[in-house]
């Protein structure tokens, strides 16, 4: 086969694409449809809690159209990083949605699932064998961190997908996966030049993100030969130019010249981006360096505590003129009140933080501008080991803060506007990412479990 045609349904499953665009793309006869379903971008909540970025309805809408199109054309559909973080529970959730779609639409297919959640005993053994190494800015990883983690996933490469495709899988849903592996597996399996393939995969993994002006999420299409690929949006309202395609290498990547994958590194230093038409771009010239050692990236999240929040704002110019000293006094008064109510030692069981919107809520202590405007927004944040304690403490915070005085006014003042009753909001569990490491498995498949079923 001299070329392969690749359809990326959308940048992230659940965010959507136009049904009309998918139809147009299917007329171009793709060899498979891929879609990424995950990211660490929205933070540690999804890996920690197992909840999902989008609703089941949103996943179902996108997945239904993909499965219908793929089955009608008898081509594989490949979904990676199920339901945001790719935990086993999230994989099961997306698989359940796929089964329900198949029942409703009377589709049948061979489904492969690739589970990527990691066994803690396995990781501790790898740690003792010094087969786990840190990446940039990694926090300390020891056995206690592994034990504390709510979930740990390994980011798979192309190999589990290749294994599933070779076993005849028609639909693949994977747990955590590198975004690019979703799009690289089939072309690499068919023997295409890995440099061309991985570069194509990087451009396609975010769907229509590489167009000149992306107004809404949509599909993207590439035609790949050994020496180059041509990327052209199937949506007639979109166009790519050499700069828009080259610019996509910048996105969410620490360097535009390298893309690190389990099996090697894509190097785009000498890549050429040429206009084929006013909306299609030909890309060639990248190289791929196979890795000296095969590694799988780990992602872990642990519980950081439970939070209660209070939102309020201040408008009184008298308070705003002395805002810093007023707020310092308020924080001290809050902490004294909490000690009076909950006793000595309570200070070790909670954190009280204030975010000041209108001063430095965005950049925190790095904010170079010091002025404030005609009002400021306040967010009081209590973090404790249980939700009950966080909420109980925040009730004292709310009352002390709302009446905290300034010397200019005599009598009882109400110094903060609360938009809600009650002012406190239970935010629930909050999590933190706790590893940025790679593992050296004995084989590329060792850390992943492939399961087949006839749906």
């Amino acid at each position, binding site marked *: 086969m001299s070329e392969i045609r690749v359809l990326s349904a959308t940048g992230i499953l659940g965010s959507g694409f136009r049904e009309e665009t998918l139809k147009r793309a299917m007329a171009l006869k793709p060899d498979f449809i891929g879609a990424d379903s995950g990211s*660490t*971008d*929205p*933070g*540690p*909540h999804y890996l920690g809690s197992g909840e999902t970025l989008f609703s089941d309805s949103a996943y179902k809408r996108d997945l239904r159209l993909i499965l219908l199109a793929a089955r009608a054309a008898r081509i594989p559909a490949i979904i990676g990083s199920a339901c945001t973080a790719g935990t086993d529970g999230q994989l099961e959730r997306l698989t359940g949605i796929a089964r329900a779609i198949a029942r409703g639409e009377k589709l049948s297919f061979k489904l492969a699932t690739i589970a990527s959640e990691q066994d803690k005993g396995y990781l501790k053994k790898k740690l003792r064998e010094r087969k786990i190494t840190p*990446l*940039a*800015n*990694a*926090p300390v990883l020891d056995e206690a961190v592994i034990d504390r983690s709510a979930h740990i996933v390994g980011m798979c490469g192309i190999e589990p997908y290749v294994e599933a495709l070779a076993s005849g899988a028609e639909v693949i849903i994977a747990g955590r996966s590198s975004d690019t592996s979703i799009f690289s597996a089939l072309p690499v399996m068919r023997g295409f030049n890995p440099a061309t393939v991985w570069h194509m995969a990087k451009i396609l993994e975010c769907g229509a993100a590489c167009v000149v002006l992306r107004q809404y999420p949509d599909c993207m299409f590439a035609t790949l030969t050994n020496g180059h690929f041509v990327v052209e949006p199937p949506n007639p309202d979109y166009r790519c130019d*050499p*700069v828009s395609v*080259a*610019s996509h*290498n*910048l*996105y*969410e*990547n*620490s*360097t*535009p*010249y390298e893309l690190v994958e389990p099996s090697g590194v894509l190097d785009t230093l000498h*890549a050429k*981006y040429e206009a084929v038409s006013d909306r299609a771009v030909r890309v060639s010239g990248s190289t791929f360096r196979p890795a000296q050692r095969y590694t799988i990236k780990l992602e872990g999240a642990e519980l*950081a*505590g439970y939070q209660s929040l209070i939102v309020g704002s201040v408008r009184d110019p008298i308070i705003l003129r002395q805002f810093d000293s007023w707020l310092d006094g308020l924080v001290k008064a809050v902490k004294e009140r909490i000690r009076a109510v909950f006793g000595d030692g309570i200070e070790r069981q909670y*954190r009280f*933080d204030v*975010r000041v919107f209108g001063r430095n*809520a*965005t*950049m*925190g*202590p*790095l904010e*170079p501008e010091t002025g404030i405007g005609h009002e400021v927004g306040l967010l009081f*944040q209590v*973090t404790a080991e249980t939700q009950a304690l966080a909420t109980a403490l925040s009730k004292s915070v709310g009352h002390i803060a709302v009446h905290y005085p300034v010397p200019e006014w005599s009598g009882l003042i109400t110094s903060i506007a609360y938009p809600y009753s009650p002012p406190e909001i239970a935010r629930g569990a*909050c*999590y*933190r*990412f706790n590893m*940025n490491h790679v593992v050296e498995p004995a084989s590329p498949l060792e850390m992943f479990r492939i399961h087949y079923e006839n749906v």
Partner: protein
Amino acid sequence: MTKLWQVAKLIRSKNSGPFELTFDVIFKDREIYEKVRDARIINAQWFARTYRLTPEVVSVIEYDAAAAIKVTIPRPVISGDVDDTDVFGGQQYGPLVDLEVP
């Protein structure tokens, strides 16, 4: 004086994973890109000062293919941790916008 936003078609910041923050400045045309690039206006010292880091941990990459300059720094706080202010890292480029360029 011309400001960076006047010669850029995009200035953005974003996570590059939960542990790194990356900034992209994509210029309106190659001529101005080369002028700013060669004047070394966007440099490790400026980022180190602004984001309170040592210059050694700041990576500045010139990307001619897109007439862009990319800067990557360690994230001040891990994305989504209790002290974090910006989970996506998307609003950390403010100080760059009004940087003076030749």
